[in-house]
């Protein structure tokens, strides 16, 4: 009798190959057909480099959204981290450690404030984190008086964070892969991850099961803040100097990737690995558009359409809502 119930550890093909990876294959084939430059080693590296920066942001937003909430302050946190890392002058062993640690700590702090507002005060997460976005951008611009930021000195080790290419692959790609793997394990194999899914699925059920909803929810925002700050530090390493008004807007492509990867807008469903797949899809599309000389405005338009299409597709597949 009980044999029908007793679980066998089954791994279906569909557990691993979700639709987004098929989409990725299709997009790559089309890209290769459109442009023979696409598969050149230099371009592939560029696609990955591009995807990784947004991808790390998207991973954090995935964790927050699995819990059922949004984090649109991430773009501002990226900018904050890039500016702060450069202002700290990442030179010498201690200097570099500080230039990495401080932005990550501030990112964690921004996440904690977001989390408190959403999970303790019950604030609407979209509007609250948009408010936070403006608050952070304004504060960073005030910090540098709206001026171009150039580090006094940048150590080679700091630059190497993004410019080193072990095995011919940019180092950040390894960082990204490691983060995807780590988050995949956290989300699927730990009690903490399980509780995030429970909160996103049904807050009331989670509360009644004694899950510390607020503490875990705040933790998801802290993760998101730290990951966004990580992206910012990588940008600082990549460019070495920057115009703070010119970087930003990472939250939108990241959100698009999160949704495209199948994370439900109402929470409880979604996987970091699928977000990574979606990030690559968007990076390929963006890259092809750049090769074909469709500039930023068209890319924006296409991203908006991809987001709308993805939301519509998944809501149709899940039977409405």
């Amino acid at each position, binding site marked *: 009798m009980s044999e029908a119930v007793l679980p066998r550890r089954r791994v279906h093909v569909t557990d691993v190959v979700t639709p987004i990876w098929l989409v990725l294959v299709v997009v790559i084939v089309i890209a290769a057909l459109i442009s023979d430059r696409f598969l050149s080693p230099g371009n592939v590296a560029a696609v990955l480099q591009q995807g990784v920066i947004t991808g790390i942001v998207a991973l954090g937003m995935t964790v927050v959204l699995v819990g059922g909430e949004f984090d649109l302050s991430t773009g501002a946190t990226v900018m904050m981290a890039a500016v702060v890392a450069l202002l700290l002058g990442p030179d010498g062993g201690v200097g570099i450690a500080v230039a990495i640690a401080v932005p990550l700590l501030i990112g964690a702090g921004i996440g904690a404030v977001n989390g408190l507002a959403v999970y303790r005060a019950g604030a609407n997460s979209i509007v609250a984190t948009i408010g936070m976005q403006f608050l952070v951008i304004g504060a960073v611009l005030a910090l540098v008086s709206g001026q171009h930021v150039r580090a006094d000195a940048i150590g080679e080790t700091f630059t190497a964070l993004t410019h080193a290419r072990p095995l011919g692959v940019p180092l950040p790609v390894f960082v990204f892969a490691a983060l995807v793997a780590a988050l995949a394990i956290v989300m699927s194999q730990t009690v903490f991850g399980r509780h995030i899914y429970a909160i996103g699925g049904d807050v009331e059920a989670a509360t009644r099961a004694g899950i510390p909803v607020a503490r875990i929810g705040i933790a998801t925002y802290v993760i998101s803040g730290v990951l966004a700050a990580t992206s910012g530090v990588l940008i600082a390493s990549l460019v070495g100097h920057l115009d703070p008004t010119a970087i930003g807007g990472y939250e939108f492509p990241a959100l698009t990737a999160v949704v495209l990867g199948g994370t439900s*807008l109402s929470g409880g469903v979604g996987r970091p690995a699928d977000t990574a797949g979606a990030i690559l899809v968007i990076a390929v599309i963006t890259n092809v558009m750049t090769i074909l000389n469709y500039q930023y405005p068209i890319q924006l338009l296409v991203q908006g359409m991809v987001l*709308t299409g993805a939301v519509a597709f998944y809501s149709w597949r899940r039977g409405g809502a």
Partner: protein
Amino acid sequence: MNALASPIFIRLFVKPPLVPLLIVATFVNGFWSVGNLRTLAEAVSTDGIVVVGMTIVMIAGGFDLSVGAVMAMGGVAAVVLLPYGIVVSAVGAAVLGGVSGTLSGLLVTRLRINPFIATLAMMVMVRGAVLAYTDTRPVVSLDDTFLALGGGYPVPYAFMALIAVIALAYLLLNTRPWGRHVYAVGADERAAAMSGLRVQLLKTQCYVISGSLSGIAGLLLAARLGTGSPIIGESTPLTAAAAALIGGASLRGGEGSVAGAFVGLLFIGCLVNVMNILGVPSYYQRMTIGGLLFALVVTDGMLMRLRPR
């Protein structure tokens, strides 16, 4: 009426300290001059028209993040259509905004997409389309009639338009059955549907109104500046949401008033105006708006939690 019914501490907490701010502003050189008051009126009039639309959408339980992008589209469209006459230009700006609002409404009601995400996507698409159309450069107009529309002394025409829009919205919301229906939909969509209201149509109409008003606001702003800029209005959704929230609207719908939102906007407008007079850089203003919105949303959430379910 609604505001009187709510506890006094909430009123003091939520309502903007507009009068204290005005008193403080007396000590700011030139605040009460005719010239500055006119500047203030100009500044609040375009945002104010947007706020009216946002408030109506929020009463219906929705949200419209696309208002800033639609405003930019309205301004660009108005300038581009000017060669066909001022009427075509004005109608064009309003209709384009209405079309965008229709799309938002359809995304929300037909595809059942969360209104924040639906209008965020609309915001990005409209912004992308306007930037692409203008090749990211502002379009300039030297048409006299158009520029005159952006003038008006001592009271700017745009401000008169705002007063007219507020009056119309007030009548629509408070004296017509339609207004009752919008409140009903926002308060309890299922109950509204069961009492026979055409919920989807009503909500879509609210988005159309918001889109059209944003288009018109864009036109008036372009007339004042003499250019239609594809990049304006980035912080407009924040300002509009903050004003509506100050005015008693809630992110859960069913509440809010156009008059209250106008008071909220006046408060924000005075704050920004005083900062401008004092020469406070724009990024501090950005910080202020962001912080204000953040605090308002937190308050909104806390008030909701206090309420017995």
